């Protein structure tokens, strides 16, 4: 009997996993003992880290898009469709547009994050973001013309994709405005929901003095409650009000609705064992990347490592061997600290991060990684 592995989501985690399985299970796939299906609701794969550079006019959204067909091994069945329901009892999936349901033996959820701007009144009208393609280009159009006033970056809630990106944005904006002789005319304020500037205390401790040095104002314990686009103010639940001329937000995030509907976790994040990545609430279901609630950052590097673990575990299970591979929380992150310098952190469940001194070399490493990402997605790197 053919064992059917279905992966939902052809972003970083799902694509790396599909290619990993094509490689690892080549004999079984050739013999028709295994089938791997990758379902994605867009025929193109999107590499989101490119969006950080779009507002500065340094990259175009198209630099972060490639046809999935070009990235995914031919041994994988690629299906461009949206999954609309998961029944973990009968191990079946429903699709949009009334296509017949499909059964699975193993299911992997790699559905990523969804932006939920509507949670905050006024956010959709008043706030810009670089967390979506259209957001990044809208912000670019505004930012390139911005020459004076109050620039506020507000992190609204966690978890959100790439916890380093808000820091990167203000560091880059500071440097970019300095280079253009505009920094004196622009005040930069960074807000964060808890009492420090980043969720991870070690990164927060490192970033805070850098922000002071660079004259970036900080408002902690700032949980945006509402935005008044007319008056150009943002107000927090804690009662602080800030004026802005240009507001950049990290909008609230959630997972996809079908996860909650399937009883796999709250807010669209799948409750998993943080080492095995197996769903807590159902058999034969894994989750990886942003959607897996492991407490580590929502980062592409995490999705990449987790895909390797799930690939090994699935191959073992399919071959009737005990699955022994586990995820240790490994996370890698480059953090841009300006337009031509970056830091780097590496950490896991046991070992905290210790940010490297910013250097030009690390900045180029980040750009080089962005270019070589397409090899990662193909499973070559």
């Amino acid at each position, binding site marked *: 009997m053919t064992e059917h592995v279905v992966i939902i989501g052809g972003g970083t985690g799902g694509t790396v996993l599909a290619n990993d399985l094509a490689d690892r299970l080549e004999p079984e796939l050739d013999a028709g003992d295994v089938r791997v299906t990758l379902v994605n609701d867009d025929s193109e794969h999107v590499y989101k880290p490119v969006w950080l550079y779009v507002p500065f006019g340094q990259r175009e959204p198209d630099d972060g898009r490639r046809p999935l067909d070009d990235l995914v091994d031919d041994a994988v069945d690629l299906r461009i469709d949206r999954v609309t329901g998961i029944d973990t009892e009968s191990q079946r999936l429903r699709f949009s547009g009334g296509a017949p349901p499909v059964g699975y033996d193993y299911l992997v959820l790699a559905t990523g994050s969804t932006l939920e701007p509507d*949670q905050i009144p006024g956010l959709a009208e008043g706030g810009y973001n670089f967390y979506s393609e259209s957001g990044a280009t809208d912000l670019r159009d505004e930012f390139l013309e911005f020459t004076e006033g109050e620039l506020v970056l507000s992190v609204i*809630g966690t978890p959100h994709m790439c916890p380093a990106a808000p820091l990167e944005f203000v560091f880059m904006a500071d440097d970019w405005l300095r280079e253009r002789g505009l920094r004196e005319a622009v005040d930069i304020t960074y807000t964060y*929901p808890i009492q420090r500037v980043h969720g991870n205390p070690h990164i927060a401790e490192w970033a805070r003095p850098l922000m002071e040095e660079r004259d970036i104002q900080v408002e902690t314990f700032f*949980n945006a409650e509402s935005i008044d686009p007319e008056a150009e103010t943002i107000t927090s639940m*804690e009662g602080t009000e800030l004026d802005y001329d240009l507001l950049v937000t990290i909008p609230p995030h959630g997972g996809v609705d079908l996860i909650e509907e399937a009883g796999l976790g709250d807010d669209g994040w799948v409750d998993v064992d943080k080492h095995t990545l197996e769903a807590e609430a159902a058999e034969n279901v894994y989750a990886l990347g942003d959607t897996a609630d492991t*407490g580590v950052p929502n980062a592409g590097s995490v999705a990449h490592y987790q895909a390797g673990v799930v690939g090994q575990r699935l191959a073992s299970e399919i071959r009737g061997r005990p699955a022994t591979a586990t995820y240790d929380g490994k996370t890698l992150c480059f953090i841009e600290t300006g337009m031509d310098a970056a830091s780097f952190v590496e950490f896991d469940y046991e070992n905290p991060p210790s940010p490297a001194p910013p250097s030009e070399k690390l900045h180029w490493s980040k750009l080089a990684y962005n270019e070589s990402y397409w090899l990662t997605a193909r499973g070559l790197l």
Partner: protein
Amino acid sequence: MTDIDHDETVDARGAACPGPLMDLIGTVRSSESGDVIRLLSDNEQSLTDVPEWAEKAGNELLAVEEFDDYNAFYVEKA
């Protein structure tokens, strides 16, 4: 044992910092003024995070109940 009535419980046991505080803030956000939220957390950091945030936000921390391996915080939304 406290016998404070509460409108909602947020079970953040097992979540890494700042998960419990963010879960509490999320629930307070969607609650009505006067609602009492009970937060369960086994994260040590919550013992400082939660009182600090409650004070800053003007919400009242009614009680902290200590159990063997977690704490229960009762927060009333202002």
